[in-house]
């Protein structure tokens, strides 16, 4: 079998970094078995930062290696990786350029044709998984008869996370190997849970691998394992799961996890993966692999997958590179941080700063008791980390000692960076910054965590307005990866560079925005929510309004999100944006009534833990007589998003459409198959209906 002709890369695709497969004989005699092992090494010749991957040429190379290994008539064949890396799966860079279904089908089939030889030849095969093995990388191993794993290696099948299925044998072989429950865990639950990878001990206990060895002599131990299997002194039992009673419940668990992840929407990738897992109960290898090929081709040739790949690459790229950031060298050294406020938000900030910057962090509040409470919260969180064994006692002691609190703002003397997280009231913040200027040095950065107020207005009247910057985190601060860095017209490069340098140390992905009301995430979310509440206030039944977006796959409905944010905060933001951006930001009388009545959530849990409308909230709905259909609600909400995004680009709030997508992916948790949001608006024709043009050229985040 040679590389099928239709696997030539389409125009524009990057040259494949070929993973070579090198065969070398290993004498098993010293390991107690008379015979030779043909050892195949996968190595693309690059260091560990560019893992081995499988494109068409790499598959052909492996195919050739298997042929030459078989030709040497060995006692066994084993496959291993380069240092620290086994293989990271399919070459995704090529995937985004496939433009014909036959081509996509061919690469899936070619992968199967090559890999399955390892499971179907009459020579025992072993995978010595010496390092990272993801997706197709782990699947190569699953085709082998036996697997060993390095104790420090991570493995997993992230396909469903990416919008694919483990389609090179994984979806069929894994359920047969470890049973439905564990396969659902690996293929569905891990992937849907932010792409959780398995540690070696997890892979061993799940039965994905047969033995785990320390990296110092992993290869020698693995060869020894192979010899002991060949000689019969080690016996590996395999179970037949075809009559396992857990198939239905396992599939239901997987289905529930997918529905939860996508707010009740049925999304193609998890659905197809579940179908393949279900089929694995009775499917032959061939019929299973054929079904995988079809699923892979369907998904690959779909816009959601292209949007997903775009989103994945965007997140990877922007984690390192902040668009529009000044040179890092312009930033100033930060050795002491001040946090104004000691409430929950401020305390979360103090914890984040002290954990990552490991420098003194001083907190202030209006009285000593409040300041003490904030410090105590930070210390208690550190203690929890020790309890969970995620931090040593020594580190926690060190960090605890770095946090202090006071009612006297003179403790900010000597700070290099002070961030405020006080009540969202412009005059208060202006007054605060003026006072702080009398305490801190002229170079100390003054940052605000405001979500919707004007940063520029806060800097008015200051001696050094150039050191003021917006530093907008998302709740919960420790988990949400996005940080919006807002520059005013006066913010200088040294200040921005300092802020970005800190953001990097805090391990946040940053987007630099203009100082515009609501920056990016809140501006879009509030506009979007406003359309839903407005539809309800006009007379659309709340369940219709709130469920209008379900099928798209947002992680939660607008009203569920409202419960999380709190109606008070949401109302405040919409009032601010209404004032600063205009009446298209609706102020909902229902929301006002809810805040007035002190009702915090639109949904409450019923006896069974399901969500039902809160009768107290329903009571307060100010309902007109104009009811819309779900279709109408969805259309107006999406149209509003497209309008607002276009305005933001026209105003220069961010540099590119990609920044908007990045913000929605990381700040709002919007799903990858929407590409954030703009690729979805493009493919639904909404962008063009609104402004006559798309946000992204065809092929960037969609099929070409």
């Amino acid at each position, binding site marked *: 079998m040679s590389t099928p002709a239709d696997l030539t890369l389409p125009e524009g695709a990057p040259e494949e970094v070929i993973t070579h497969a*090198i*065969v*070398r*004989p*290993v*004498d098993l*005699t*010293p*390991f107690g078995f008379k015979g030779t092992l043909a*050892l*195949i*090494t996968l*190595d693309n*010749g690059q260091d560990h930062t560019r893992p081995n991957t499988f494109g068409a040429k790499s598959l052909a190379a492996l195919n050739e290696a298997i042929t030459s290994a078989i030709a040497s008539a060995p006692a066994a064949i084993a496959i*291993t990786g380069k*240092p620290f890396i086994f293989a990271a799966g399919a070459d995704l860079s090529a995937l985004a350029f496939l433009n014909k279904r036959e081509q996509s089908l061919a690469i899936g089939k070619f992968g199967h044709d090559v890999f399955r030889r390892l499971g179907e030849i009459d020579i025992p095969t072993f995978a010595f998984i010496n390092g990272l093995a993801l997706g197709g990388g782990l699947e190569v191993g699953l085709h082998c008869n036996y697997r060993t794993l390095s104790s420090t290696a991570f493995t997993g099948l992230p396909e469903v996370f990416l919008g694919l299925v483990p389609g090179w044998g994984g979806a069929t072989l894994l359920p047969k190997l470890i049973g439905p429950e564990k396969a659902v865990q690996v293929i569905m639950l891990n992937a849907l849970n932010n792409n959780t990878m398995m540690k070696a001990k997890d892979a061993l206990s799940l039965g994905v691998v047969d033995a785990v060895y*320390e990296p*110092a*002599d*992993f*290869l*020698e131990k693995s*060869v*020894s394992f192979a010899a002991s299997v060949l000689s019969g002194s080690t016996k590996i039992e395999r179970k037949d799961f075809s009559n396992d009673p857990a198939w239905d419940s396992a599939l239901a668990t997987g289905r529930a996890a997918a529905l939860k992840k996508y707010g009740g929407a049925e999304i193609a990738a998890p659905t197809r993966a579940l179908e393949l897992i279900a089929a694995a109960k009775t499917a032959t290898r061939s019929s299973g692999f054929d079904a995988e090929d079809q699923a892979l081709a369907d998904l690959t040739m779909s816009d959601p997958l292209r949007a997903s790949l775009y989103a994945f690459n965007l997140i990877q790229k922007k984690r390192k590179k902040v668009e529009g950031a000044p040179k890092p060298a312009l930033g100033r050294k930060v050795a002491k941080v001040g946090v104004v406020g000691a409430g929950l938000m401020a305390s979360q900030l103090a914890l984040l700063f002290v954990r990552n910057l490991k420098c003194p962090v001083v907190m202030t509040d209006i009285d000593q008791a409040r300041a003490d409470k904030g410090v105590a919260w930070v210390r208690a969180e550190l203690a929890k980390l020790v309890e969970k064994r995620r931090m040593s006692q020594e580190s926690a002691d060190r960090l605890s000692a770095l946090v202090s609190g006071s009612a006297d703002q003179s403790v900010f003397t000597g700070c290099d960076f002070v961030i405020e997280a006080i009540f969202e009231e412009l005059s208060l913040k202006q007054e605060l910054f003026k006072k702080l200027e009398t305490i801190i040095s002229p170079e100390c950065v003054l940052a605000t965590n405001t979500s919707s107020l004007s940063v520029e207005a806060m800097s008015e009247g200051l001696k050094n307005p150039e050191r003021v910057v917006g530093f907008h985190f998302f709740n919960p601060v420790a988990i949400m990866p996005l940080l919006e860095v807002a520059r005013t017209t006066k913010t200088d490069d040294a200040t921005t560079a300092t802020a970005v340098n800190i953001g990097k140390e805090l391990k946040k992905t940053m987007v630099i925005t203009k100082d515009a009301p609501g920056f990016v995430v809140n501006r879009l979310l509030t506009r979007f929510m406003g359309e839903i509440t407005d539809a309800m206030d006009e007379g659309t039944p709340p369940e219709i309004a709130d469920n209008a977006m379900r099928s798209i796959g947002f992680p939660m409905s607008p009203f569920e999100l409202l419960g999380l944010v709190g109606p008070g905060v949401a109302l405040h933001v919409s009032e601010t944006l209404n004032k600063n951006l205009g009446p298209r930001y609706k102020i909902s009388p229902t929301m006002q009534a809810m805040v007035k009545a002190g009702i915090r959530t639109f949904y409450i849990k019923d006896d069974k833990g399901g969500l039902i409308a809160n009768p107290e909230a329903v009571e307060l709905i100010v309902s007109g007589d104009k009811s819309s259909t779900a279709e109408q609600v969805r259309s107006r909400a999406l149209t509003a998003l497209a309008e607002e995004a276009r305005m933001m680009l026209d105003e220069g709030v961010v540099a590119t459409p990609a920044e908007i997508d990045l913000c929605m992916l990381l700040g709002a948790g919007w799903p990858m198959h929407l590409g954030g949001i703009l690729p979805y608006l493009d493919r639904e024709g909404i962008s063009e209906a609104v402004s006559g043009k798309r946000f992204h050229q065809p092929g960037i985040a969609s099929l070409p």
Partner: protein
Amino acid sequence: MSRSVVLVDAVRTPFGKAGSLYAGTRADDLIVRAMRGLLERNPKIAPTDIDDVAIAAATQSGDQGMNIGRSATLLAGLPNSVPGYSIDRWCAGALTAMTTIAGSIAMGAYDVGIAGGVEHMGNHPMGEGIDPNPRYLAEKIVEQDALAMGNTAERLHDRFPAITKERADRYALGSQEKTAKAYAEGKIQKDLIPTATRSPELGWGVATIDEPPRPGTTMEALAALKTPFRPAGRVTAGNAAGLNDGATVSLLASEDFAKAKGLSIKARLVTFAFAGVEPEVMGYGPVPATEKALKKAGLTIADIGLFEINEAFAVQVLAFLDHFGIADDDPRVNPVGGAIAVGHPLASSGVRLALNLARGFEEHPEVRYGITTMCIGLGMGGTIIWENPHFTKGAK
């Protein structure tokens, strides 16, 4: 308060030609692999029992630097509580690691220790980074020849004209033949720890045998080799050890500790000595070192039933044999061959001699005493006298 010190066990990696078998393998990975192999086959020793780890390397930089003794201890996964240090006496590094650990055990400070050596001559060519003081030559402290080992071997030929090139070649041939025979009988493989190798071109492999031996060598082939150190010289690549990569490691303990833990006892250390000679004829070092050690032990050369002498150069072995009146092909000398065949990764060779001698003791319960001896650059020799724990009185 001297205590009896015993060799519990010793192992090594297969040796490679410099920059060949282990071209893509680090020196510290070699010594780590040997250490893990040694501990794995001695499960009665708890890693926490190990009082110290002494590892030798002749060049202590790069992957043989960072205090290779401590570094290897950490990389081998020994508990943090186990300390380690580095040793350098050029070729006699591992031999000195053994005497130093043994000395600490004998004086009662330690119960058990690890002594070994590593040299990756592919990564660290001989003479790497050396900076000889100009006084050496200006003040004639040494002659130029003293600084190149091949020249010192030629100088030894000059001193002992009876040791001809033909004799040296014949000795070398014998070394190759003895090694080939020992391999065929499976004797050498017993103490080799299979070791992963990797090169970007060849991928991963596992070394299970020495790479340097040239079975099938002939006198004709040896005679045809060039004499790179001088025109019409006698020293060739065939009658000298090559440039090699490898690691060795041994476990030494007080006899009381070994017995209490039920450990194997492969040899009992009697005494040792180091001695200096003119640097220009460093290959003569084993002679005074052995004389000195014998005297300390109250033994004579006639008491020694097995000799493990490092074959840096054939001439240096022959000078030793001539001095003690031993035949070139005496079966007591290097019975499984030596460095001319299997290689000489400088600082690692001392332990290889000890592990060969221990196997010889097993085979020859009639022998009571054996020695390991080697020459050392800049004019030295080192000798350890060992007693055979399997010795049966009454046998010859």
